[in-house]
């Protein structure tokens, strides 16, 4: 009991420290803009990776639908929050124009004399929650048939679902809502990394609390041994569906954040490649480790967006060789690094463990004792 309290205090102060650092870093002029990108995208990927870990790592359900649920969240967010004044221009390639309006919200906002900032924050929160709920709703719908499938078939079915969703969202007939294959833009977005970090932190906090609750134990029991879990009175269908719906809800929120991060939204990037990217982060961080997923997300985004950029543009560290270091080389190096990690660190950075000061302190104590013995 006491041990976990020390850990909790440590973790909370760590989070507070990170936030303080982010606010300071972002307000210093001339700071590498890449750092800001890494913080924003890293925190979004961290949330999505943790939500995938909840399902794949903690409940043992091998689902590959993450990109599909992110797309649902992203589109729901954008469609709901684009200001009515901008809709005509955004939907200009759609004959019927936009079928959705946010007048209901603007009316309430005006009636309550909300300031512009409050109103914007509120619609962002509403949009994100709606994104999460729509993603959760779809996962609830497909959950019943899909979750009966065994391992590989579940992966294939969810992957297929994600691809179908992507195709449907680009369908002309849905143009008045999704803008077909045209770009959605002008929805409210965030400027600093504080917003995505806060949202991610809150969502991840909820997932951690859930995993440490009696429901989390039921999920892990299902992962460890379905037959034994069932014999202990755990309803498999109900709990698998719960994990699936919650995971999809947070993937939807992550998708909404990603839409904000990108400023514009199209269905094309939400391919299976995006799911694999997230799966990779989960594997690198350690299947079944939340802190592993978070660390791996920031490392992965740092590497792909920042540290290895030079490999594509002819200059990396001290090497200058435009002939070799050109477009695409970054991905080659990146893939090799990932292969090495997957081959030599089979359990990822953290295995199934979490960051814990108490364990860290114990390590020191043991060393001290050893030294004394000598």
């Amino acid at each position, binding site marked *: 009991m006491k041990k976990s309290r020390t850990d909790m205090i440590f973790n909370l102060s760590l989070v507070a420290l990170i936030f303080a650092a982010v606010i300071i870093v972002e307000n210093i002029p001339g700071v590498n803009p890449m750092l800001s990108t890494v913080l924003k995208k890293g925190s979004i990927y961290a949330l999505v990776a943790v939500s995938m870990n909840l399902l794949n790592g903690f409940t043992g359900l091998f689902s590959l639908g993450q990109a599909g649920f992110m797309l649902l969240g992203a589109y729901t967010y954008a469609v709901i929050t684009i200001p009515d004044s901008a809709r005509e221009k955004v939907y200009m390639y759609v004959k019927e124009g936009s079928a959705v309006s946010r007048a209901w919200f603007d009316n309430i906002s005006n009636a309550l004399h909300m300031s512009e900032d409050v109103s914007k924050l509120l619609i962002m929160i509403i949009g994100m929650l709606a994104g999460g709920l729509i993603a959760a709703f779809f996962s609830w719908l497909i959950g019943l048939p899909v979750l009966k499938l065994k391992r590989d078939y579940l992966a294939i079915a969810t992957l297929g679902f994600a691809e179908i969703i992507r195709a449907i969202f680009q369908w002309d007939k849905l143009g008045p809502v999704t803008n077909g294959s045209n770009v959605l833009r002008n929805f409210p977005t965030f400027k600093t990394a504080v917003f995505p970090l806060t949202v991610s932190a809150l969502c991840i906090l909820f997932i951690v609390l859930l995993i440490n609750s009696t429901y989390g*134990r039921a999920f*892990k029991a299902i992962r460890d*041994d379905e037959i034994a879990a069932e014999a202990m009175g755990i309803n498999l269908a109900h709990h698998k569906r719960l994990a699936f719906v919650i995971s999809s809800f947070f993937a939807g929120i992550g998708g909404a954040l990603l839409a904000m991060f990108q400023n514009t939204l199209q269905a094309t990037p939400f391919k299976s490649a995006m799911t694999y990217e997230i799966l990779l982060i989960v594997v690198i961080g350690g299947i079944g480790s939340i802190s592993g997923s978070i660390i791996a997300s920031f490392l992965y985004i740092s590497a792909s967006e920042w540290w290895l950029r030079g490999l594509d543009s002819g200059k990396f560290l001290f090497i200058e060789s435009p002939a070799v270091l050109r477009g695409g080389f970054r991905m080659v190096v990146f893939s090799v690094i990932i292969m090495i990690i997957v081959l030599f660190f089979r359990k990822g950075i953290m295995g199934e463990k979490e960051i814990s000061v108490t364990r860290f302190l114990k390590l020191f104590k043991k060393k001290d004792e050893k030294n004394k013995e000598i």
Partner: protein
Amino acid sequence: MSENVLKLENITMQFGGVVAINDLSLEVNKGEIVSLIGPNGAGKTTVFNVITGVYEATNGAVYYEDKMILSNHPQGKMKKMYAGTDAGKFSDVMTKTPDRITSLGIARTFQNIRLFKSMTVFENVLTAKHMLRKSNLFGAALKLNHREEANAREETMQLLERLGLDDVKDELATSLPYGKQRYLEIARALATKPKLLLLDEPAAGMNPQETMALTAFIKSIRDEFDLTVFIIEHHMNLVMDISDRIYVIDFGKLISHGSPEEVQNDEAVIKAYLGVSEEDE
């Protein structure tokens, strides 16, 4: 003493063409310790799997505390293939998933130990308390159920103390020696607060001393937790010592039934075991 806890009526379990249980009827009464014995492959574990809803019997009905909980008759393809008897006797179809059976008050252990591998001894037992929760997901995540959780932890601790597992409570369940793993399985089953306990070869892999200790232990928990026990076992010393009544099956068919003395002297049983009976495994 004759209050009926479990009753099987004409149960037949057919896998494809294989009849694993053939027209089996039996009863277990409140407070009894009843054994189910038979040679390897006789269908004993399958009987447990039918009672707990892992398999759906092809024909027959199961009653728990005088209420029908499971029932079936040959349907679909099975109609033609059915090789058992009493095909027309049961008209109801009633199925339940294993978790529903457990929540009725029937808990079991497994012949090939099935502990939660990633969890400690304590967590294994605590997880079985999930079934008894009243809190919903949000309440549990936001720790609004702290009283329930504290209660579950305390009961878990008490169980572990009772079964002599408290000193290893923070160890990985799978790192325990074999015998202790079997006790842990019993602890986990007891955590669901059952009225009927099904034990599938709890003494498998134990030496004679351990088996004797287990025999005394099963008797004591029967009294302490007000249990009815239905037990599958190969160790004849344990079976003869512990059982109020014994059912013997061979090739899925009931071949004998009665008190330990009656069964021990039954020609059919001796023939089925063909001298295998007093072996030590």
